[in-house]
């Protein structure tokens, strides 16, 4: 039980796929202009990760070692196609704003990374927990960056205005440079926090 909890929580901080391992950065930077997009992308990726981890851990023993990577990619691509069609059907708006980055979930290195490093070596139960942990960790990082960019760049959060009419915003945060700088500052902040914790301990 303790084990399962640990598998789940490490995706959040100690092994956060984005902030610590620097995996899957393209969607992190590209779609985090608003908190809504960040959340949508995070959940879509979590769904794919959940599906691929489950199938891959279930079929790991059946796959010959030499063709395992192409096989993983096909499994992942199938789940991405499902998500793509679901989003297109139920939320055309989200589809519009995430655009190219929905099919690109296939090449999110976090998903293939989890398949190779975890799901192929562990049982289904733990792989599902791992998928939730990593997926939520990914979503958390996206939400953090996108909320920061939306607040600074547009003065709103989830499209709800925080300050009065016509706020003075830092437009650059909503533009590409804001994504790079925002993520840089978040990681630096995390490093500083960690160092402080270590010196306290």
């Amino acid at each position: 039980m303790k084990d399962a909890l640990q598998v789940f929580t490490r995706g959040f901080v100690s092994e956060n796929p984005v902030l610590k391992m620097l995996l899957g950065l393209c969607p992190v930077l590209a779609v985090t202009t608003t908190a809504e997009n960040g959340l949508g992308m995070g959940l879509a990726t979590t769904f794919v990760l959940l599906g691929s981890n489950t199938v891959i851990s279930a079929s790991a023993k059946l796959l010959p070692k030499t063709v395992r990577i192409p096989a993983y990619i096909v499994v992942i691509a199938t789940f991405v196609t499902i998500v793509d069609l679901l989003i297109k059907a139920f939320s055309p708006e989200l589809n519009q704003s995430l655009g190219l980055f929905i099919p690109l979930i296939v090449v999110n290195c976090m998903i293939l990374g989890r398949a190779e490093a975890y799901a192929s070596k562990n049982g289904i139960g733990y792989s599902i927990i791992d998928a939730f942990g990593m997926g939520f960790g990914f979503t958390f990082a996206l939400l953090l960056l996108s909320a920061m960019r939306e607040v600074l760049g547009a003065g709103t959060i989830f499209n709800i205005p925080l300050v009065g009419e016509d706020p003075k915003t830092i437009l650059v945060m909503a533009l590409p440079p804001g994504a790079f700088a925002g993520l840089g500052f978040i990681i630096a902040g995390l490093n500083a926090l960690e160092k402080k914790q270590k010196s306290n301990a």
Partner: protein
Amino acid sequence: MEILLIVVSAVFVNNVVFARFLGICPYIGVSKKLDTAIGMGFAVTFVMTLGSAIAYLLYKGILVPYKIEFMQTVMFILVIASLVQVVEIVLKKVSKVLYASLGIFLPLITTNCAILGVAILANQGDYNFFESVLFSFFSAMGFILAIVLFAGIREKLETADVPTPFKNVPISFVVAAILSMAFMGFSGLVK
């Protein structure tokens, strides 16, 4: 004129790294040294151009006539993955020198989202075959430009006095932010 527009747009205005956010993982991962950055850049150019061309032909030739366009993602990634394998095998046989310099980057390329992204973009636009190959090639040139610029700066950063929390990765992101700001100067050049 049309061709010039595609070139300028692919290299500067819609630069894959700074404007479209594609290929960020290799951009951050292998840009510590100038020569590895150049090696990665060439490997990407090779696979991106060839991959887009094959994907274009298969898309127009198979997926569209049979009305199964939703298979695009699955098919493209398979094309790219197998292409990377083929290129690796051929390079190993044909040119030892080239294999030694590009070899280690090839497996990384399968999960480089710039390759798949550009292949999809080249298909979405109303490009004909020639234009889509041109678009892919110059998108790759844009990638080389970005990663070489960045690697040059990172080599200098090694000796710079950076505040401890910002060491390594965070400062690289800040540098990328400034570079991307510079590239925003090109926007408006082409619609």
